[in-house]
């Protein structure tokens, strides 16, 4: 039986009072003295040679302080393939390419000046889909690589693949085989707070960047490299992270606009702020990739999976961000969602003249779970099985090692499947759709939940510092972007160290004060931060208890003396507190130090602040203050990507979502009647924020399934705003949601917890598509499932022709 006070208790978020009263400061709200505003001149073509840039009219506009281009600034390269540039020279490869930038006294002047810049182009033919880009002799988006070597084709030179077992033997052992092609659209992360930053230099050439980022320490690394390009070797970058206004993956790269702010600040000697408006956010910030997957899966006569074969083609757009590495995460479900022994996974990432893409929550997992889980239903139908039974039969088990080498420690997938079926009354309800247009579907997820190693360290440092009043200041380099990381961290520190949550204060994320952290992605924030916090709290307690051996008896003596004097009914405690005052007998809870076995008397208890002050101001021999650092590096491997092998996470989260839909056969409209989300979360740290993560992820899953798509025409974004890009509103989210939290108490998790940030949006789309099939018998294979697509499929069905 656990004796925890705060873990698992519904607790309000520490940042909520400021957020509900408008006090929280986002980059949008911050202005610094002397600040200028930057604006960017973007390309007018998807693919063209730049012949001439005339900035004279912009320079003459009153209020303009500087106009920069690639021709009057040092070259700054961006991205892990170094194929992108802060400002483009010679050629543009997408509509949003940055050609020039302006710093001016106010944002309107800056934008006006940017529009006055005249650019002459020589238009080039472009490639606007992977199919076009892969044609022999297609126009090259990049004629050379970063080192200037000629490129032969438009394939991005990174490979993620996996081949295990024997696919042909798997096929031979199959009684049933299904095959299908599935697509996912380009979608926008749609943070309510748009992108922005403030760059400022000190007079020695050190840069401070207030950045809307999820990776402050990788930003520091990237910008230190950029300082070298400016001739500022040895100077340093400090990254300060304000409240984010939503991240969802947009903060996993450094962006051209941030380097442009740096260049403008360097050129003008003044702080420069760049803030995107909503149209710019849609048109000029990287969205989530579109992708096409071909999948073949088979099973034997009993429904046991025999093989799985997947080929993915991903439209990278014109440059390479970390988001290009989505297939690294696709490997996890491709190899390890359900037990399959013969697996082939191949991916191709292709340059096009479309907008280049970046990460979004789930990072490849929703893209690949969509075909896998749709195809499982297709296979079950072929085999004449209930798809729930087929999932149970092939369910992952605790203790197994998957073909990718993932070590499954705890696994609640069976419970997730069972609870989902139970809550939907699956046995009675499913398969009765025809005629009433009501259907039931389910889909599952496996997700990294103990970090996701994609970099040489997947660790997180933390510092816990005590002040003279018993408060714990926490310096952690990860980012609270709304998900509730700080809430989980406060409860963990309070629990592990022994204070009340109100005594824990989290400092602003700042590379100057926080230890290194790889970044807040891969559902890793709370898992890492809380594990590091538990380690640091242990060290802090140890050191405090050593000091308390001397100080605690003095404080008790003082209290007893006072009590003897003031309390006429005072009786000496029948307890040898001097003998008990040893480091292995101290207890710290709720900010009060006690010794084990002592009677519950106030004189025998010392309030933490008082103890700390007594230690700090100790007369003989001097005192001390307390701060402890800990670095948690999860026990994982950096996978061999070309082999698709390696245990990239310390634990894995599982989940199943089930949904009931009603399909209007006249309009093609899909209405969700209710939704069940059963998730193996390891252990609940704060039920309120955990549910918040799942509810929010579900809405993103529903948007992905039914509504969202960035439409483009020859590389130009056609719907750059919320008017034409449909996010689910409260009126679309008008159905009951039942959340089941399955606690599997993971041994590597802080108090047993697993990462929960992403899994909630992964299985939503296939669960909905499976329910639509159950309702009306049409299978939609390309997201989003719009009424038009459903109607078209129903029409084909009535005509007796196959759908697609």
């Amino acid at each position, binding site marked *: 039986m656990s004796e925890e006070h705060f873990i698992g208790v519904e607790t*309000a*978020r520490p*940042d*909520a*009072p*400021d*957020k*509900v*009263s*408008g*006090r*929280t*400061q*986002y980059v*949008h*709200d911050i202005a610094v003295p002397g600040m200028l505003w930057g604006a960017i001149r973007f390309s007018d073509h998807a693919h063209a040679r730049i012949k001439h840039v005339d900035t004279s009219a912009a320079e003459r506009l009153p209020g303009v302080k500087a106009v920069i281009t690639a021709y009057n600034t040092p070259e700054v390269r961006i991205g892990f393939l170094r194929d992108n540039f802060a400002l483009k020279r010679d050629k543009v490869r997408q509509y949003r390419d940055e050609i020039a930038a302006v710093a001016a006294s106010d944002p309107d002047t800056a934008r006006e000046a940017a529009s006055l810049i005249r650019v002459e182009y020589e238009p080039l033919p472009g490639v606007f889909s992977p199919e076009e880009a892969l044609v022999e002799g297609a126009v090259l988006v990049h004629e050379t690589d970063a080192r200037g070597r000629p490129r032969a084709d438009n394939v991005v030179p990174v490979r993620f693949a996996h081949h295990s077992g024997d696919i042909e033997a798997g096929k031979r052992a199959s009684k049933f085989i299904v095959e299908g092609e599935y697509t996912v659209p380009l979608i926008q*992360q*749609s*943070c*309510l*707070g*748009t992108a922005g930053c403030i760059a400022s230099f000190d007079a020695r050439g050190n840069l401070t960047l207030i950045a809307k980022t999820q990776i402050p320490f990788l930003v520091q690394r990237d910008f230190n490299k950029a300082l070298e390009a400016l001739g500022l070797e040895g100077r340093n970058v400090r990254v300060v992270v304000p*409240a*984010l*206004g*939503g*991240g*969802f993956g947009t903060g996993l790269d450094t962006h051209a606009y941030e380097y442009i702010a740096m260049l403008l600040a360097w050129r003008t000697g003044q702080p420069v702020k760049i803030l995107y*408006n*909503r149209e710019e956010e849609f048109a000029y910030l990287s969205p989530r990739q579109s992708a096409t997957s071909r999948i073949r899966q088979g099973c034997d006569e009993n429904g046991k999976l025999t093989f799985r074969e997947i080929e993915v083609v991903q439209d990278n757009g014109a440059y390479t961000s970390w988001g290009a590495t989505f297939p690294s995460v696709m490997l996890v479900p491709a190899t390890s969602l359900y037990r399959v022994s013969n697996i082939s996974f191949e991916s191709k990432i292709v340059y096009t003249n479309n907008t280049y893409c970046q990460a979004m929550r789930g990072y490849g997992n929703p893209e690949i779970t969509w075909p896998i889980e749709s195809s499982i239903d297709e296979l079950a139908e072929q085999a004449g099985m209930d798809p729930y039974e087929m999932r149970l039969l092939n369910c992952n088990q605790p203790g197994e090692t998957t073909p990718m080498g993932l070590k499954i420690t705890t696994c609640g997938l069976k419970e997730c499947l069972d609870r989902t079926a139970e809550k939907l009354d699956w046995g009675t309800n499913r398969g009765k759709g025809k005629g009433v247009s009501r259907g039931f579907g389910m889909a599952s997820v496996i997700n990294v939940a103990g970090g996701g190693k994609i970099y040489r360290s997947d660790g997180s440092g933390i510092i816990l510092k005590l002040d003279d009043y018993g408060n714990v200041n926490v310096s952690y380099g990860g980012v609270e*972007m*709304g*998900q*509730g990381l700080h809430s989980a961290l406060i409860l963990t520190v309070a629990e592990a160290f022994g204070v009340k949550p109100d005594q824990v204060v989290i400092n602003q994320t700042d590379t100057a004060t926080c230890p290194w952290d790889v970044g807040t992605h891969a559902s890793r924030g709370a898992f890492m931060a809380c594990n590091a916090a538990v380690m640091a709290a242990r060290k802090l307690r140890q050191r405090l208890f050593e000091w308390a051996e001397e100080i605690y008896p003095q404080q008790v003596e003082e209290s007893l003396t006072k009590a003897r004097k003031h309390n006429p009914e005072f009786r000496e405690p029948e307890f040898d507190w001097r003998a008990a005052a040893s480091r292995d007998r101290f207890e710290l809870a709720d900010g009060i130090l006690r010794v084990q076995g002592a009677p519950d008397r106030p004189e025998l208890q010392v309030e933490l602040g008082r103890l700390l002050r007594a230690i700090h101001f100790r007369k003989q021999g001097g005192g001390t203050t307390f701060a402890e650092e800990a670095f948690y590096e999860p026990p994982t491997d950096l996978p061999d990507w070309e082999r698709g092998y390696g245990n990239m996470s310390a634990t894995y989260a599982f989940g199943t979502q089930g949904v009931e839909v009603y399909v209007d056969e006249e309009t093609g409209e899909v209405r969700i009647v209710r939704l069940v989300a059963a998730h193996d979360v390891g252990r609940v740290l704060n039920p*309120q*924020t955990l*549910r*918040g993560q799942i*509810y*929010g*992820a*579900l*809405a*993103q899953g529903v948007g992905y399934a039914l509504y969202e798509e960035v439409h483009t025409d020859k590389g130009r974004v056609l719907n750059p*705003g*919320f*008017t034409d890009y449909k*996010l*689910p*509103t*409260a*009126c679309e*989210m*008008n159905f009951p*949601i039942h959340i089941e939290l399955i606690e599997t108490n993971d041994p590597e998790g802080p108090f047993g917890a697993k990462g929960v940030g992403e899994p909630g949006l992964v299985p939503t789309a296939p669960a909905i598509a499976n329910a639509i099939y159950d309702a009306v018998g049409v299978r939609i294979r390309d997201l989003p499932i719009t009424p038009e697509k459903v109607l078209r499929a129903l029409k084909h069905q009535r005509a007796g022709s196959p759908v697609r």
Partner: protein
Amino acid sequence: MKTLLRFQLNGREVAFEAPPHARLLDVLRDIAGLTGTKEGCGEGECGACTVLVDGRALNSCLFPALEADGRSVVTVEGLASREGGLSELQQAFVDEGGAQCGFCTPGMVMSAAALLAENHSPSDDEIREALVGNLCRCTGYTQIIASIRAAGERIGKAATQ
């Protein structure tokens, strides 16, 4: 050229000089320095800039500042008591987990304030209807709706006591 603008802002008479094309949002954020009201889209689609003008919730990004002349404007900063205590509605958002990244929150709170001023016990569908112009990307709205429901119950209870 600037025009003098007088109105009641969070219960106090104020006067500002504003350019004729200024939006109410610009006056609130850039001139009055009240940055609680957010700009999420600038085209009246997301509701992050919602404020009350004469008690009606509207998008301050579409509302010409000059139109506010002589009226009463309430922003998220005007809901709390002078000592900084939260209103029942704000407290309910805290208690029920109605805020995540928080960027949509001021607008959500203001739309909810307008709703609850008229109706203490709205149904969930009435709440959704009132929030149709407020986008949230983090919460999926469930805990926002729970916050508003709880606030209505508290306000209703206080009114009957």
